[in-house]
């Protein structure tokens, strides 16, 4: 027997993507900025921008999306953008990495081998490995965040699943 599409959809949407998140529970933001969305969809309008390591109250779980409230705002966040536990790093520590709240993950990239690691390579005779790792970093950093987003959309991964 063929089930009506809306029944199948209802069942699918009722399955929590992450068992850890349940109504009444808590979740934390883990990105320097997290968009709180009006609808459980990646391109929905933004209700608010949530700061790093913010404690949220879970209101509802629908598939891969979690409805949360914080500071008087309620909206949707993709489960992959939430953490079960408060992030270990404080924002001061992240700022010492050259990452500020106004930057995205993409602009925070392109960090080469630390000078102390380069010195380690020289000390340990790892010259060829250094060239390899520097090539890796250069080649990886040349892949823009937009390409990752496009991959997620075409392959239906992350918030686009």
């Amino acid at each position: 027997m063929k089930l009506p599409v809306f029944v199948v959809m209802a069942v699918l949407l009722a399955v929590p993507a992450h068992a850890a998140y349940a109504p009444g529970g808590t979740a934390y933001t883990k990105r320097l900025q997290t968009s709180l969305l009006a609808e459980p969809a990646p391109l929905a309008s933004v209700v608010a921008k949530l700061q790093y390591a913010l404690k949220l109250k879970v209101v509802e779980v629908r598939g891969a999306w979690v409805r949360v409230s914080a500071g008087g705002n309620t909206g949707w966040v993709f489960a992959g953008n939430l953490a079960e536990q408060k992030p270990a790093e404080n924002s001061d520590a992240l700022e010492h990495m050259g990452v500020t709240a106004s930057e995205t993950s993409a602009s925070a990239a392109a960090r080469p081998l630390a000078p102390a690691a380069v010195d380690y390579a020289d000390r340990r005779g790892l010259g060829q490995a250094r060239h390899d790792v520097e090539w890796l970093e250069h080649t990886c950093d040349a892949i823009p965040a937009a390409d990752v987003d496009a991959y997620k959309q075409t392959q239906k991964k992350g918030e686009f699943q």
Partner: protein
Amino acid sequence: MNRFRSFLFALGVLAATAGLHAGFGGFDLSKLADPKTADTVKNGAKALKGLTGIGPEEERVIGGSVALEIVGTYGGLVRDEAVLRRVNLIGRTLAGCSDRPELTWRFGVLNSDTVNAFSAPGGYVFITRGLYALADDDDQLAGILAHEIVHVTKRHALKIVERSEALDGGISLVAQQNSKVRATQAQLQQFDLGIDKIIDTLFKAGFDPKTEYEADSVGRDLATTTGYSRDGLRQVLQKLQQEHLASSKKVFSTHPPLPERIRRL
């Protein structure tokens, strides 16, 4: 002096030197005995620390050094940009849903026909050419990468050197150095010993089984949340077991037995 306390002290100096003095290409040995510089280093090392003992800048130094050892030991890197792009698109998609999305993640393929994967603090993930070839599809590759990503997000390698540390004691040792040259050599030696400890775990002893099972379990959840199959890693492990590859070449030699990992997934 506890050698790991010394390691953290040395690391604090190295990381502070690298992180606080932009454009500095090496270690300025002459400044280490200057009280003002010592204070700067001490304060800098403290400021660099997050809530977990080893801060992001220090993690970057450790991670880079460990990555160099991995690449140096396992035949260098496969310089195929199409392969690298595929691994990085999948890897960064997973890492974006991990507990540390703000790290600078890099994924590389080691030019070795052994079957293994490694990660280094700071966001370096490596898979051998032998294991890459065994993954039939993106789901299986994602299962492998997710396992390694979890080693980084859970700071498993860093815990090797954190376990027996007393951070404040290590940092305060900066005031006890009498000979700037001798002190620096000692710092470098202790730093290198700390890296050796991590490398020994990655290449020989392996993480303890509980740590590996955690990486399997949390990695499976990460792959699922990201939209990949829940069974990707399990399928790879089953394939290895069925093909009896374990008897012919080194397969996950630093990990717990395959049957037990499969049973738990």
